[in-house]
């Protein structure tokens, strides 16, 4: 009975959305039919938001990155804060549990040493991803998450490692503070918060795109440390042997 009501309601609401969104008089742009000209994105793609600046106004080859870090950098700042808060929350909530997770298996020497190599590779590729965030797909979020997953492997392979996470606290705070400081420097130099006060350089170069790579590296570090913190805190808990 309950499921039938649930299905009926869901279908009704879905119909509500479908019939209205795709009705004849709806001016919602159909899938794949839209044109960039009608959105604000055309200026992002052409990099012509502010004609008074030195062209190209952002040097990032990856347009998504230029949006995430530059045009809508404020969102990213907020979103890093969300992750920061949830990491804090996980730590606070996990503090109640107080027990360490132990696994039934003991990681052997081969796993231990092999892991270290793999972790190194993953770390490097993660760092590569966020350093090249303004050029290639990827960036701070996947890069940071990769760093986090590298440490996940460390956690899994090494029992002792699970305690050594104090450094991440410093790292997350430091990276976060640096993001804010970069923003504030922009405010003091250019008059706008998160203002791009560095030269843009040429599209496609590593040292291009002004503060974009700087910020994205910081975001990557921050996301990485947050994810690692969350993972570390998740290893605290009552897990049966």
């Amino acid at each position, binding site marked *: 009975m309950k499921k039938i009501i649930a299905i009926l309601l869901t279908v009704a609401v879905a119909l509500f959305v479908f019939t209205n969104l795709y009705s004849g008089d709806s001016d919602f742009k159909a899938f794949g039919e839209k044109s960039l000209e009608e959105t604000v994105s055309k200026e992002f793609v052409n990099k012509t938001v502010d004609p008074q600046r030195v062209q190209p106004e952002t040097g990032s080859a990856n347009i998504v990155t230029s949006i995430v870090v530059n045009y809508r950098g404020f969102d990213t700042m907020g979103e890093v804060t969300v992750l920061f808060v949830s990491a804090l929350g996980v730590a606070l909530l996990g503090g109640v549990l107080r027990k360490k997770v132990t696994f039934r298996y003991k990681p052997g020497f081969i796993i231990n040493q092999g892991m270290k190599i793999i972790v190194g590779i993953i770390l490097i590729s993660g760092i590569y991803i966020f350093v090249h965030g303004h050029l290639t*797909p990827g960036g701070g979020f996947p890069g940071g998450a990769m760093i986090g997953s590298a440490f996940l492997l460390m956690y899994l392979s090494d029992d002792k490692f699970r305690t050594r996470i104090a450094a991440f606290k410093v790292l997350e705070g430091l990276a976060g503070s640096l993001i804010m400081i970069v923003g504030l420097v922009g405010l003091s130099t250019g008059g706008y918060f998160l203002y791009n006060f560095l030269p843009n350089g040429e599209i496609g170069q590593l040292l291009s795109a002004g503060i974009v790579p700087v910020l994205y590296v910081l975001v990557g570090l921050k996301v990485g440390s947050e994810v690692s913190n969350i993972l570390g805190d*998740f290893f605290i808990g009552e897990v049966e042997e």
Partner: protein
Amino acid sequence: MIEIIGVITGALIIVFGILAVESKKLINSVVYLSLLSLLSVLSFIIMKAPDVAITEAVIGSGLVTFLFIITLMQDKKAGDKK
């Protein structure tokens, strides 16, 4: 062609979504969720969103699944029940 792949992927996503919601065992749900994420990565790629695809691959199907599994490990019984 690529449209058709997109539709098929989308249909698979729905199927796995329903499976994830309705499956009796929690661990199965988690696995279906992980598969769902992977399929959505494919969709993201089809829709020309490589950044999102990478992020979703790492976070959606990687980290989130891991978090679920750690939580499930807390109680073996809960993992088996329903």
